[in-house]
């Protein structure tokens, strides 16, 4: 046997063994498109996942299916028109969207809404928070497979939406904020009705607590699923309840630059050390109750007075820049407004919470099962309009 032949055989022998091992172990990963039309994606988010069996090897969120170009459109609108558009960013809590933009414009103009307007704004913001979170509580049940909570959620949310409609005229898109205050004062009897409805909100929270937390299966499906450690969450720019569920005690209503009536309210910032899907559910449940408490507290000491400051008939914002970030139901929402002295903004940059919240998906979805993927998507709680703008 010659040297080369020997080497050849050794080579073949070695690689044959390897080839056989590869035949046994090699299998194709399956690429599964979740979305853009899938019930778990709340709209048109598309998550492309590579699956090994049911285990996610890699996941990539594809966004932009609902991009409406608001940042560009608002450059061609006057300030009062802009609120109509930004209402539709996070459509479940539209009122809360309006606040930071109006606030930014007011800062540049150097005017401040009267205290009564600030209080009513705070009340309505907290009401939108309740409306959004009640939908979340029901949806969380639906995504882990329970069909009933979602119906309770939409039933109970309706009480809150009725209040928003009674005060602003719009169920979903109030368009109620004006630069310098609010369009109208509260209708008569609204405060009594709101107190009654807050009682219902507490009841509703108890129902969800019973229905979901009272079920063993809900615990095994959410605990330890999709853990986001605090530093990783901060690194990806996750904010709001999602970050508080990772144990970060940070809430712009308390820790940020003072806005609305929050400095005058004493409220608890709920956190949970878990960082998993259950913590995110739990934190939102507590925050729903806390929001109802804030509403009741504010209604007790609602100041009298006008709801509109003195502003010129045609609003021209002087040249200047302003960056306002606030704690919206989905997380941190910010507006960077540049004005060049015209009737409309020169440039607006919108920092929306969901955009940053879903950016963690590739990290957090690695290695989970397909059903857990749905749980994690539900627990991160994003609104498509808030991702794509």
């Amino acid at each position: 046997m010659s040297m080369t032949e020997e080497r050849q055989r050794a080579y073949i022998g070695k690689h044959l063994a390897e080839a056989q091992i590869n035949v046994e172990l090699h299998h194709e990963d399956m690429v599964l498109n979740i979305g853009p039309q899938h019930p778990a994606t709340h709209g048109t988010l598309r998550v492309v996942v590579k699956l090994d069996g049911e285990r996610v090897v890699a996941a990539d969120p594809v966004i932009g299916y609902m991009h409406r170009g608001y940042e560009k459109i608002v450059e061609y609108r006057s300030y009062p028109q802009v609120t109509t558009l930004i209402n539709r960013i996070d459509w479940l809590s539209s009122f809360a969207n309006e606040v930071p933009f109006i606030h930014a414009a007011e800062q540049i103009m150097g005017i401040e809404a009267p205290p009564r307007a600030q209080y009513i704004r705070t009340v309505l913001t907290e009401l939108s928070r309740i409306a959004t979170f009640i939908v979340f509580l029901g949806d969380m049940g639906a995504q882990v497979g329970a069909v009933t909570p979602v119906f309770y959620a939409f039933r109970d949310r309706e009480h809150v939406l009725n209040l928003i409609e009674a005060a602003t005229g719009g169920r979903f898109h109030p368009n109620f904020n004006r630069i310098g205050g609010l369009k109208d004062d509260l209708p008569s009897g609204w405060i009594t009705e709101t107190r009654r409805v807050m009682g219902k909100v507490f009841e509703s929270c108890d129902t969800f607590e019973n229905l979901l937390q009272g079920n063993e299966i809900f615990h095994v499906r959410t605990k330890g699923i999709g853990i986001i450690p605090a530093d990783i969450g901060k690194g990806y720019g996750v904010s709001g309840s999602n970050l508080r569920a990772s144990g970060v005690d940070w809430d712009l209503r308390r820790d940020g630059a003072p806005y609305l009536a929050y400095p005058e309210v004493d409220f608890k910032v709920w956190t949970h050390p878990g960082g998993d899907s259950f913590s995110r559910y739990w934190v939102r449940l507590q925050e729903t109750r806390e929001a109802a408490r804030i509403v009741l507290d504010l209604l007790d000491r609602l100041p009298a007075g006008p709801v509109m400051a003195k502003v010129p008939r045609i609003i021209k914002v002087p040249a200047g820049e302003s960056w306002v970030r606030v704690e919206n139901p989905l997380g941190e929402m910010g507006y960077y407004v540049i004005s060049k002295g015209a009737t409309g903004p020169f440039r607006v940059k919108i920092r929306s919470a969901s955009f940053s919240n879903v950016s963690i998906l590739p990290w957090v979805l690695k290695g989970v099962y397909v059903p857990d993927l749905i749980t994690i998507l539900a627990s991160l709680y994003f609104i498509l309009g808030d991702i794509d703008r």
Partner: protein
Amino acid sequence: MNPLVALEIPWGLLLVIKVMVILAIIPAAALILGYVFLMKMMSHMQSRFGPMDPGGFHGWFQLIGDGIKFIQKEDIMPAEADRRIFALAPAIVLISTFVVYAVIPIGPRLVAEDLDVGIFFALAISSVSVIGVLMAGWASSNKYALLGALRAAGQLIAYELPLVLAVVGVVMQAGTMSLQGIVGAQASGEIFGWGGIGNPFLLTQAVGFVLFLAAAQAELTQTPFDMPVAESELVAGYQVEYTGFRFLFFQMSEYATAFALAAIAATLFLGGWHVPGVEGTAADVLGPLVLFAKIMAISFLIFWVRFTYPRFREDQLQMLAWKYLIPISLLNILATGIFKVAF
């Protein structure tokens, strides 16, 4: 002796009559369960009314109308589908349901075929439907359908064992596998020497009853074990590519199987068609009604859980089955054996 034979009906005609009766029962059962539980009970649990207009009285016509709609729909088949298997799958699922009905007694003389191994036959046949599900998932050439079908196959092993083992206790106590024999054993039994209502095995086999219902829930792919369908994850699992009357077949067999399994549970644990103190022809009239009431009671339990619970994950079901259901059912068998020998 079969009374119909006494009327000298030729066996061929008799067979046709039996087949026609079962063929009529399946859609009727599916309609009743679908209407009473899926449409009405679920709606009221979720604080809504459900259909109210079709047919005049509380929307009773809704499901029949839905059925007519499904039949009218275009038969869509995916371009990549394995056409023959795709078409065959719903039929296999429905046939397995159909055959189960053949052995369920609804009166002392009302049973299509009183097999000596009745319960064994029923449980064996009812799991054939998984083959149909696998075929449907595979032939659809859809990833969601495939995942759903594979989950169904994985689930089969997990729940089939506790289902059968739960029944073993009843069979041991009755000393027969014939469903008529089991009804008879319960009718002639006594509770501490008092034979007023016989001895429904629910009393002695309560553990078996719970295990049976849990496993039946998995067999029916109902929440909390509805991973093969999983509306919020796999959209509809193996059914995702089906439309029109093929989809109707799946739906019908789902509810008809729920009815059949509830009937088996009623027969095994609640005394079946037996009414204390009623014999002969009267029992043939009353028996089906009593059995129907029992079926509805058990279906209520099944659907109550379905509308309330979240869904397990596939691996969690395996854990539940192997760590809890199977050991408990084995202990149940052991305890039944000890009592059988002792008393």
